């Protein structure tokens, strides 16, 4: 019964956080479009149709067409699917690896120094530079972009988990559990990590935004997924030379990218206000 009321109140507070709801709507639009891509964008995003090139947005071509006559509606929707896929994969890897590394460093003091120095070193690299260097090494493909973004962002997640674990480890209830004979694994999984989830969840929602944004940056620079893969960054990079005559080729995917990032940032702010009041930006 108590558990029910607690959950009820977090959800209730989230649903009454206006900016969180706005973020959920914006991000929700993109997620739904990505999920329904085969239904709402049946035209092949890579189908060339030179007769129809540079069509401005109209009823036939909702978002217009590009320099090869490809439907921008299809390309942007399928691009959304790819962005959501890359974002979720990076978030998932971060959640697992970042928690494991952060928890190990924070809980086992002997590991702390070494693990955190490697972490600090990875964080010392400028994020985008490290990401493009890693894709230079691995090669330009969707899976390599996911690996590159995970290498760049996992240290940041690990640091946040570690800082919660270091505090929680010294809590009296953890010592009580230890005195009662609980082992390290049980203490970590049952007593420490569940209480470290709030800042992690907040971090992951911002991380999703960074991942989508950095992926778009990489493909815009030409080091992400190879064309003609429809990613928002690729579409904008190709549309760049036609931006005077066909501005819709860059403005529409750019707007989709902005809506995604804005939605996720609003979600992150809302989650932080509700779940982690210590970090709250005062209202």
């Amino acid at each position: 019964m108590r558990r029910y009321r607690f959950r009820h109140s977090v959800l209730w507070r989230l649903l009454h956080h206006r900016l969180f709801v706005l973020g959920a709507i914006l991000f929700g639009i993109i997620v739904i479009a990505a999920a329904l891509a085969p239904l709402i964008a049946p035209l092949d995003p890579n189908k060339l149709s030179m007769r129809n090139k540079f069509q401005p947005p109209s009823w036939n071509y909702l978002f217009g067409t590009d320099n090869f006559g490809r439907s921008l509606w299809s390309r942007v929707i399928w691009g959304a699917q790819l962005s959501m896929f890359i974002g979720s994969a990076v978030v998932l890897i971060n959640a697992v690896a970042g928690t494991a590394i952060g928890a190990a460093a924070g809980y086992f003091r002997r590991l702390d120094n070494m693990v955190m120095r490697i972490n600090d070193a990875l964080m010392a690299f400028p994020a985008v530079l490290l990401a493009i260097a890693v894709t230079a090494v691995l090669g330009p493909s969707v899976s390599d972009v996911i690996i590159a973004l995970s290498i760049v962002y996992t240290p940041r997640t690990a640091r946040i988990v570690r800082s919660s674990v270091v505090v929680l480890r010294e809590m009296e209830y953890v010592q009580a559990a230890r005195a009662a004979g609980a082992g390290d694994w049980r203490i970590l999984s049952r007593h420490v990590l569940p209480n470290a989830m709030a800042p992690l969840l907040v971090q992951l929602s911002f991380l999703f935004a960074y991942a989508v944004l950095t992926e778009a940056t990489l493909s815009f620079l030409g080091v992400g997924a190879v064309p003609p893969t429809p990613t928002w960054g690729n579409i904008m990079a190709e549309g760049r030379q036609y931006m005077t005559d066909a501005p819709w080729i860059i403005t529409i995917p750019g707007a989709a990218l902005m809506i995604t990032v804005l939605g996720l940032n609003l979600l992150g702010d809302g989650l932080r206000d509700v779940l982690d009041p210590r970090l709250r930006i005062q209202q």
Partner: protein
Amino acid sequence: MGSIIAQRLIGSIPILVIVSLITFAMIHLIPGDPATAIAGLSATSEQISNIRHDLGLDQPLLAQLGHWYLNLARGDLGRSLLLGQPVLEATMQRLPITLALSAYALALTLLLGLGSGIIAALKQNTFIDQCAMMFAMLGISLPNFYLGLLMIVVFAVHLGWLPTGGYVPLTEDPIGWLATSTMPAISLALLLTGLLARITRSTMLEVLRQDYIRTARAKGLSERKVVTKHALANALIPITTVIGIVISLLISGSVVTESLFSIPGIGQLLTQAVLNRDYPMVQGGLMITTTLLVLVNIGVDVCYALLDPRVRY
């Protein structure tokens, strides 16, 4: 002060060692044979073995590592395959360009970010506050290359006020530099302005709630004095710690901004190096920029310790 700098410099050594190891390892993580990957598909076996020899890839790994450190100590980061020029020289030629642009963007960030954050905190929960925070949110959500493209379309193509790109050195023609650098600087500064405005506002609000502010008001000081002498002076101290992050983000941001506006800085140099598989340039450029960032962070920590006598390392 000397001891703080010394301590921080010593503390940064393990980080720089790991950074250099990661950078060294990069070329060995290329799937397959790095020399073949660098040479490209049409290379003859002789060209491949030349590259292997030039990069020292034909030596044992430990010997290569030893060479890497020996050369690092001498400031020799190898020769760029694409430019045929020493990596250090190529980087140092481009660095002032990136630094000048970053300084311009940093000035805009500090002016707009600090200003709007302070005003938002002082006018908490008013229309002005909401507008400022809405702009800050848009700032952190608008991709900088998207803003750059939109600005090119509007201000360069349609209105013709500013050039679409290119670069004029600051020392040769300051006005021309300002014209070519303004749009890149704005597109770089936007994200950081949003971040800084949000942090400034929350720090200011935190400080404004302190007892000493109440005391200052109670003893009859003018609001202006309370804000400038008591609130701002104390709020700016924690904000200095953010500057390190801001500079790191500026360097990251300059990669795409320089490519977009054709500015021949470090970002463009490294993007070209990556696209052309010029690994010595990628390694060297990464090593130099990261070392500089570590040094900037030491500088920030030292400033912080100087500004806040409570901080002792």
